[in-house]
């Protein structure tokens, strides 16, 4: 019995750390209230459940998880025309714009073990709304058609099926981080650099 308890406790210790730590949960509770805390708990549970799922299921699960958050403009939320929120700010406020969806999905998938070199931040133009938009794209290989994780169309489709989106520009965070590390650059991408700083500070 004792051995069983020991094995179980070891197994729990070896279990991956949650996406949002307990500290973060307490802070979310303090800042945004119990509902926010519950959203964080729910996020942790969902991601934990997706751990052993297939890549497609992970992509869809994460896409669905964050597409549940309401859309709102940066100007209304942060008083700025464009602001890249951390996943904690996004989920804490339970509101955000397209970049905030992409960022939260990116870090959640990365948490689930999806290689970041396969994930791209894609600047696109929405033909339906006739305005700039951002989606997260997943490339199984550099040559394959990417899958699009969008907050307008909640389903994960190959890019070829998203005629309503015109790709403009892609960037991969790995390329930026590599440049930072290998070439000792102070900064690589203004928005990205600030976002990383905020995440490191657990900005909520």
């Amino acid at each position: 019995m004792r051995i069983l308890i020991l094995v179980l406790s070891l197994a729990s210790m070896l279990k991956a750390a949650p996406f949002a730590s307990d500290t973060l949960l307490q802070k979310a509770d303090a800042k945004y209230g119990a509902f926010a805390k519950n959203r964080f708990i729910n996020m942790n549970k969902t991601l934990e459940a997706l751990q052993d799922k297939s890549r497609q299921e992970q992509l869809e699960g994460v896409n669905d998880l964050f597409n549940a958050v309401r859309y709102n403009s940066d100007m209304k939320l942060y008083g700025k025309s464009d602001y890249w929120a951390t996943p904690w700010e996004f989920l804490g406020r339970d509101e955000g714009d397209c970049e905030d969806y992409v960022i939260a999905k990116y870090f959640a998938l990365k948490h689930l073990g999806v290689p970041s070199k396969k994930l791209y931040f894609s600047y696109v133009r929405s033909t339906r709304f006739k305005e700039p938009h951002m989606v997260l794209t997943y490339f199984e290989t550099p040559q394959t058609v990417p899958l699009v994780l969008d907050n307008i169309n909640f389903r994960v489709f190959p890019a070829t099926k998203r005629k309503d989106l015109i790709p403009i520009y892609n960037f991969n965070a790995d390329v930026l981080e590599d440049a930072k590390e290998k070439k000792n650059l102070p900064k690589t991408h203004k928005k990205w650099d600030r976002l990383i700083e905020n995440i490191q500070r657990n900005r909520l």
Partner: protein
Amino acid sequence: MTLFKQMALLTSMLLLLLLGIVIAVTFSNATGALEEQLYEDAQNTASSLSLSLGSASGNESDMSTMINANFDSGHYTRIALYDMDNMMIYERIGEDTDHQTPEWFIHIIPITLPVASVQVSAGWSPIGVLQVQSDSSYAYASLYSQLIRLSVLFFILAAIGLTLLYFALHIVLRPLTKIQQQAEAIMQNEFIHQDEIPTTTEFKDVVQAMNSMVIKVQDIFDRSDKAMHHNHELLYKDSLTGLHNRRYLMMRFPEYIGEETAYEHGTLMLFAFHGALEANKVIGHQNVDVLFHKIGKIVQNKGRHIDDSIAARVNGTEFMLLLPGCLGSEGLRIALRIIRAVQTVLRDKGLEDKETFNITAGVMGYDRDKDIGTILSGADYALSQANHLTDEQIYLDKNHKSSTVMGKEAWRNIITDALEEDRFRLDFWPVFDARSKKVYHKEISFTLLDDEKNLYSYGKFIAPVITLGLLAEVYMNIIRQILNTSASNAGSSLCSLRLPSDFFHTPNITLALEPLLEAHADTLSIELIFGIPERFIATNMELSNSFIALFKRFGFGVGIYQFTGESEEYSYLKALRPAYLKADASFLLDQDQQSMSSLQIITNSLGIELIATGITETAELEQLGKAHIHTIQGPLAESYIKGS
């Protein structure tokens, strides 16, 4: 190194260091900012170019053209495009970098050129990575011009800072300069009272302490001055007439006879008033006192025109008048004038009876080879003869030779020949410290060697020199010789030459003396002190001050000889600050303990060497030693030196 220099050096170094650090940090920041700017530019180019490349849909030719267009229109070191497998698709590298900045600057200031990387996508698919690196030439040009600006700024700030620092230190340390001057003055026994008290606490304390010391020393000096003057009055003055007394006359008399004197002959007069007791009855004691005072003034005034004349009241009814250099015949005329003047006073006082109230005079002409006793006996004899044997109330003892052995012209020839042929020979007599057995300085005397090899001592030729009006020429010749004498010839690096009063009275002598002193001031191998007789200073303060200033201006010292405390006060010693006071041993030994103590307080406080002259006997030396006088001059000093 002075405190001012130390502080100036330290603060200057700190200021320069501070400025240097500020400039270096500013320059370093500018370099960092410029590197960042270069990266930003490269990043912007990369971003915009990658969007353009995306529109080429992977056509390498189009993409190369776009890269070329960007590369040629901007300033880049390198633009390269890689595919997703990191294989190079196209690359442009800058071939000639036209730096406008010097090579050394590029060499010592390395600028790292960051490479901006962005992804290039064709539609949804990423097709490669674009790398852009900016050109450094503009960065170097900008940095170099910034360095020049900073350097100019550095020098301007340093110049302004150091100038302000100099003035600030000057103002802050100004009290210190005055303190230093005061301290140096004290070291030189000059006591300056500093009225301006500094505000800096430390400086204030020091100044107040020194001022306090100066006041105390000044007080001691003043009290000694007064005590000495008072003692001098008691010892050598007649309280009723204000004339000197017999003691004083006897002390001074030796100066005017013998070998060393400048006077070949002289006249001593003795006046006796008869009828003092009767006068008391007729006009009363007080009026008799007034009468004696008037007689004293008459005796003094009638001989005043004779240099070095001394009038003294030798007892209640007798007066003495010593006239050095005056022939008996001239003395007789003066005596007659005195008697006539006294008779007038007697008449005015109602003492007209010549049988009862009378004044008689004995006039004794003497040559310098006579001793004092003989001269005094002669004067006494002449007075007694005048009292009893003559109707004229005056008797002249014709005891002196009225003419010199050698004629004036013969002397003129000898002296002028000696001047022309430099036949005056210098003698150096030691002034000796009996305690340390060391020579304090050498007193310079001189002799004359004529063309027949006859050697004339100073005493032999100096009287004719004065009579012939050649004193200035002879002394100028001697001074010239001394100024060209080496210390080894003199036997001492410190020498002294006594200048007689007549030398200072020579018209326009400074016109000849000044250029001579000036010419030798810097090349002199001995330290020379010019001796001035105290009587000359006491009676010619202004003239003596001008000569003293002249001597001191060219670095020559000043001493006082024949010191007898003639002056009314001794404060002139503070201003004059002579190297020594030479007084005859008989004068020094004549002083009581209080007078001697006062004199020594003055000399010690001013750093003046008190020297006893004319010492002939060991007993005198012992007595002087008891009075703490150890520096001596005279035959005994010479025998000491020879003995040692």
